[in-house]
């Protein structure tokens, strides 16, 4: 009976270690604060109708960015805990964490930073900016967009749930390679939490990818041919195509791992005819292109930023597109460079090594293009340009380290060392995250109607850059000394401790930068009257998102603009065109809470799988199916804004 009701759950699953207790208390405290705040300010209904149930990509985008920021906090806390342990745990001292806990932290850190921070920020920017850039009012499938966001949230909750129920997370590294992640070596629920967190959020990502792909292909403003699309939209398109191509691989692969664990199958087990090398191949067939999913839109953002602030056309648009295509394509034939040390043979290793190096060509072309865009320009050094220059200085080193790792002969030595860790942090922080920060600063006035404080933004940038080099230069050096990654302890005789401490100091400097960014948002909000953007075009922009007001009305454009060239808005300004006023009826999608309910049921289903609770699984499954049917046969999902209403709305807007 007890097993029927709560499956494998026992009181052992309740928090009883200091970190799960701490995590649980923090989560409860935050929840209480939020609930009290919402009740006190009577914002519940507003939150529900205006935000949570919204299908407006702009609102969903903002929610993505808020959620990603929260997860960045969680992931950064993990980072500090990791480096603190490594700074302490030398010689006779074994630090303040036991090995298993330490391993859970770096696993969670990696997964959170990739799946919930970088992907979250990315989908946030894509949601807000892409429809504006291509001159449309919504995504192709507004409901799927809401659902995708809520699945992402469910996945994020799942990855934090072990604090409250279960007590342990996967202690396997962020990709949970078998046989370590199999039942034989990891019998707890940690790996199951890992599987369902990724499975649920991955489903959301896949829906998002399909949505953006269809939106960009089918819903561009009249006259916007493919080769008139802004660079950011191009990169969004390529990134979405990659998502569509690779996320099914991830879903299938971790589903097989789950079958091993849940049904006792033998896909990746040691023995019984399982083959763990297959998992490693499959997960990296997803994993390497995934890195480009993160970084390609970053390149798009830099293209927009450099061209806008150089007040000049983007140099070499076609080669830029070609380079992005090249990176996207070659991304599929490099996965083996993640495991040269598995004994594939010199020919195979050399092939994958050289393929990886070829990616260096289009990447270098893009950097040349940005340089030539600045060349003969008039560069205004706003914060986004600082992030761009910071990106160039970090990315160059990261790129050299990357091509070095791509050479099997060097990789045999550098693989699994802190050198590798430093390399991919350089790429993800210096490439993707700096790009995201540049993008957020750049588009902030579009989102909120006021600019971010420049001074604090630049201070934050310097903290990030200095902190970055302080944190990761020691890691490159430690790698060369032969320090492997993921060490919870090392001998005092190695003399590595000062370097680990230096790295910890670097993390703290980065932390100050992040705090300055929070402060920047508060200060900018307080000074919003001085920094208000009334024109909708604070940076003298070039693309369509600047053609509408800041913040844009929920229908984006009262009249969809007609595009005649690349840099459409720039050309409109050159010709002195004003906003057209030939209003017509438009249809918009209604808000719906079904996305929340559906992802809630899927969450229950995942939870039932983790703890083997049959009735809950059936409830989650049936609930999800009913939600799908209700939505599928709901023909009342849109409403019309008539031309006269639109005129009134627009006239009110201009009066402000």
């Amino acid at each position, binding site marked *: 009976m007890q097993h029927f009701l709560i499956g494998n759950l026992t009181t052992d699953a309740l928090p009883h270690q200091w970190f799960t207790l701490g995590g649980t208390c923090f989560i409860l405290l935050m929840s209480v604060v939020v609930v009290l705040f919402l009740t006190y300010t009577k914002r519940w209904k507003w939150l529900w109708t205006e935000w949570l149930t919204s299908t407006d990509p702009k609102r969903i985008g903002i929610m993505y960015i808020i959620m990603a920021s929260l997860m960045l906090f969680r992931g950064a806390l993990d980072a500090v805990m990791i480096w603190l342990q490594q700074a302490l745990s030398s010689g006779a001292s074994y630090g303040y964490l036991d090995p298993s806990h330490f391993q859970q932290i770096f696993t969670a850190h990696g997964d959170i930073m990739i799946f919930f921070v970088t992907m979250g920020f990315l989908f946030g920017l894509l949601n807000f900016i892409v429809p504006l850039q291509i001159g449309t009012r919504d995504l*192709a*499938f507004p409901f799927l967009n809401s659902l995708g966001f809520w699945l992402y949230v469910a996945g994020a909750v799942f990855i934090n749930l072990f604090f409250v129920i279960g007590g342990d997370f996967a202690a396997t590294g962020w990709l949970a390679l078998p046989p370590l992640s199999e039942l034989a070596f990891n019998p707890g629920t940690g790996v199951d939490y890992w599987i369902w967190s990724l499975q649920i959020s991955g489903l959301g990502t*896949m829906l998002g990818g*399909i*949505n953006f*792909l*269809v939106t960009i*292909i*089918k*819903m561009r*403003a*009249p006259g916007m041919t493919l080769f008139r699309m802004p660079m950011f939209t191009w990169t969004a398109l390529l990134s979405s195509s990659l998502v*569509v*191509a690779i*996320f*099914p*691989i991830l*879903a*299938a*692969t971790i589903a*097989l791992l789950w*079958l*091993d664990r849940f*049904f*006792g*199958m*033998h*896909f990746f*087990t040691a*023995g*019984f*005819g*399982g*083959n763990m090398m*297959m998992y490693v191949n*499959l997960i990296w067939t997803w994993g390497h292109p995934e890195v480009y999913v993160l970084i390609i839109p970053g390149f798009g953002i830099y293209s927009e930023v450099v061209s806008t602030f150089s007040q000049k056309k983007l140099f070499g648009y076609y080669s830029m597109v070609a380079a992005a295509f090249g990176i996207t394509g070659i991304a599929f034939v490099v996965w083996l460079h993640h495991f040269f040390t598995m004994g594939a043979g010199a020919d195979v290793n050399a092939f994958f090594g050289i393929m990886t190096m070829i990616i260096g060509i289009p990447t270098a072309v893009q950097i040349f293009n940005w340089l030539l865009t600045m060349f003969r320009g008039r560069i205004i050094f706003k914060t986004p340009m600082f992030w761009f220059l910071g990106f160039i200085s970090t990315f160059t080193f990261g790129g050299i380290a990357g091509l070095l790792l791509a050479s099997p002969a060097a990789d045999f030595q550098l693989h699994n060392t802190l050198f590798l860790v430093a390399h991919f942090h350089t790429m993800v922080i210096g490439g993707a995250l700096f790009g995201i920060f540049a993008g957020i600063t750049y588009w902030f006035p579009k989102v909120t109607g006021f600019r971010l404080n420049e001074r604090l933004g630049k201070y934050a940038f310097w903290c990030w850059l200095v902190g970055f080099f302080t944190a990761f230069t020691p890691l490159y050096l430690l790698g060369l000394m032969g320090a492997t990654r993921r060490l919870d302890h090392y001998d005092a005789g190695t003399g590595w401790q000062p370097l680990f401490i230096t790295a910890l100091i670097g993390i703290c400097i980065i932390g100050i930068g992040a705090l300055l960014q929070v402060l920047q948002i508060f200060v900018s909000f307080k000074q919003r009257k001085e920094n208000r953007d009334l024109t909708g075009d604070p940076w003298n922009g070039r693309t369509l998102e600047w053609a509408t007001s800041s913040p844009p009305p929920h229908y984006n454009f009262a*009249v*969809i603009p*007609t595009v005649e060239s690349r840099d459409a808005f720039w050309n409109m300004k050159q010709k002195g065109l004003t906003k057209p006023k*030939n209003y*017509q*009826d*438009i*249809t918009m999608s209604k808000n719906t809470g079904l996305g929340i309910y559906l992802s809630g049921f899927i969450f229950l289903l995942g939870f039932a799988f983790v703890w083997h609770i049959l009735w809950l699984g059936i409830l989650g499954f049936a609930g999800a199916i009913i939600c799908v*049917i209700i939505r*599928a*046969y709901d*023909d009342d999902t849109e409403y019309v804004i008539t031309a006269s209403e639109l005129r009134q709305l627009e006239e009110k807007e201009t009066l402000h």
Partner: protein
Amino acid sequence: MADNNIQPVEHEHNDRVIFGFWVYLMTDLTMFAVLFAVYAVLRNNTFGGPTAGELLKLPQALAETLILLTSSFTCGLAVLAANAGSKKQAYLWFGITFLLGATFLGLELREFSHLLADGQSFRNSGFLSAFFTLVGTHGLHITVGLFWIAVSMVMMHVRGLTASIKSKLVRLGLFWHFLDIVWIFIFTIVYLMGAAR
């Protein structure tokens, strides 16, 4: 300038939905591709147990194939009938498709239960895990398809052949054909090539 009267908008919307559905089918196909690859790798990992050739019965698989191919044909007729606005014909052909699909599923379950009764469980070896998962995932898709047909028939009865119902039936048809194509691959790779060894 975009023409905003109702007709083109509806058409445009339909166009998007169909395109999106194709993209979804591609993702599903990628997932099956992974399962096929896994099967190919694990095919000989029987861990001392019998091989595909010794376990699987070609005649039954052939029967399943013919049934599913026929159902694909009747499903095509059903979608045509629905598009032509003939409710009765649509019921008839979808009904036949449903029966054929259910027969297919029944045969598949029969094969599974025979294997399990013989002690050939998916826990025995990598090969059997891969076999049950690949064929079973297809079976799961067929189940979804049957469920979809049933719900569609009910909604067609309640609402009649509206434009929205018709558009969903087109997608149902695409889905069913897709399953048919996947099955052809399963038949070839699992059963035919299994028997050939």
